[in-house]
């Protein structure tokens, strides 16, 4: 076969991947020394059906993994201490974590609340002769000093992001490993396909169906075979590059959606109750749009019903199909969504069009088609006066809420729901923190 031919990248490995071990649980163990050495789970809710979003190494050793619920966690690990998240603490840890890394280079990219990638080719310390491995050890020490003795990180170094991340996962917890052209084959030889970041069981099955059963076979596969036969897309070429230490992954994606989701403690199909939650989700969404000086051109509403415990992804803007498990609809609205009441009005309209066949377990409002609010680009045919007036009112309300605290000024239908939609911190989305 023909196709792209690349040798294994022999350049000096200058990409570093750093991740905080069991982030939320470790921060809890750092803050509370009675928890150190004990199994700890951080769960979205501490009720039996709340999902564990992080577990300490002690809990992981007893089988408490991401996604089990609190009842299962207690069965697997009697005596586990379950706590709900404390987002401000984790955000502070993220900031301190980043501050340590910025001492080495300004090319630091947060990948999530607990993961960073650094490119060190322009690091002043590297140019002065410090080795990348020495930097890794110094960073570990810096994080220990800044965040505390219970906090450890995994450091991986490689010629591209993929190999740096793979290296970071080789010796958890508290490892430091380097993968370069000299040990690449040996490293792959010791691993399973599922050990490769980005390879899930679905991809593994696909690779195996095409005769690729080990990372070494994956490495030795022809580019054209991966692109045309295995993945049937450019993804095959990206894997071909990635596995050899070349970089197909240095792309930053802009924000595409802003939204909020809420798991309802007392599941309900009462439209009045759902509307109240919808209003608060709309307010939170609106606050984030306005903070980022964005407006949205579309909105979607998603509800999961009580009978379905499985979470599934949604795409596009078409109506959802399986009405037994959930309902989704999204659409462009033909106007600018910026003010909370506009977001709420459209979300409410979507709710009214929904078939709520069972009590709602989880509900989310998402805005998409995001644009920067540009005062130079006024639409002479559109309702600019209306938009500007709504914008001024929303901005004024935000100023009051900034000064006196969130939800100091609220719409009347939110009056008796203090704190219902609680503060959360996402694993993947840290754009609001930058």
């Amino acid at each position, binding site marked *: 076969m023909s196709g792209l031919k690349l040798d294994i990248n022999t350049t000096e490995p200058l990409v570093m991947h750093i991740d905080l071990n069991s982030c939320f649980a470790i921060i809890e163990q750092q803050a509370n020394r009675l*928890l150190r050495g004990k199994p700890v789970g951080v769960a979205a809710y501490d009720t039996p059906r709340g999902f564990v979003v992080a577990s300490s190494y002690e809990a992981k050793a007893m089988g408490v993994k991401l996604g089990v619920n609190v009842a299962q966690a207690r069965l697997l690990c009697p005596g586990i201490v379950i706590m709900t998240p404390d987002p401000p603490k984790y955000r502070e840890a993220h900031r301190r974590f980043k501050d340590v890394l910025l001492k080495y280079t300004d090319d630091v990219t947060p990948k999530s609340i607990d993961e960073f990638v650094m490119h060190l080719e322009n690091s002043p310390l590297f140019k002065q002769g410090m080795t990348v491995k020495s930097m890794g050890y110094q960073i570990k020490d810096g994080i220990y000093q800044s965040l*505390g003795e219970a906090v450890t990180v995994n450091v991986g170094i490689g010629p591209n992001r993929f190999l740096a991340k793979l290296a970071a996962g080789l010796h958890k917890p508290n490892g430091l490993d380097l993968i370069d052209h000299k040990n690449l084959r040996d490293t792959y030889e010791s691993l399973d396909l599922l050990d490769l970041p980005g390879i899930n069981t679905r991809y593994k099955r696909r690779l195996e169906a095409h005769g690729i059963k080990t990372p070494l076979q994956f490495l030795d596969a022809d580019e054209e075979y991966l692109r045309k036969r295995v993945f049937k897309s450019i993804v095959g070429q990206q894997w071909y590059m990635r596995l050899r230490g070349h970089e197909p992954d240095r792309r930053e994606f802009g924000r595409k959606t802003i939204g909020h989701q809420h798991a309802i403690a007392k599941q309900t199909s009462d439209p009045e109750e759902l509307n109240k939650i919808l209003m608060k989700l709309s307010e939170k969404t609106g606050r984030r749009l306005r903070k980022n000086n964005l407006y949205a051109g579309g909105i979607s509403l998603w509800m999961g019903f009580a009978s379905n415990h499985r979470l599934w992804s949604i795409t596009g803007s078409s109506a959802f199909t399986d009405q037994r498990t959930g309902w989704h609809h999204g659409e462009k609205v033909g106007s600018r969504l910026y003010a909370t009441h506009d977001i709420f009005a459209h979300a409410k309209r979507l709710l009214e069009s929904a078939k709520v066949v069972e009590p709602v377990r989880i509900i989310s409002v998402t805005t998409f088609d995001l644009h920067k609010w540009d005062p130079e680009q006024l639409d002479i045919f559109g309702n600019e006066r209306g938009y500007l007036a709504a914008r001024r009112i929303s901005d004024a309300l935000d100023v009051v809420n900034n000064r006196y605290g969130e939800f100091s000024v609220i719409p009347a239908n939110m009056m008796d729901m203090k704190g219902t939609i609680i503060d959360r911190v996402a694993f993947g989305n840290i754009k609001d923190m930058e």
Partner: protein
Amino acid sequence: MRESLNEPVSVVSYYNSSSRQVQPYQLNWQGQIYKLGKIDFWHKTRRGDVLIHHFSMGDIGGTAYFKLALDATTLHWTIEEYMTADQMEVVYERFEA
């Protein structure tokens, strides 16, 4: 969710100019006096304009954990969380949605 116990407490604290750090030193709560150990985690939050400092720390004997909050506007101290070694459960107020 984690809500504050928000119970007023008496705290003796000092400021160390060389480490440039405030150290809560002693806590008087529910009729008991606790000598406090080092700060294990410090972070800040804002409630509107009001800055709040949160100190997570244990007592010096290693038998209790506290999360204390200092309102930087009023200088009032409150206790937000506590836990004891013989009852391994963090206590904080919760509410149902």
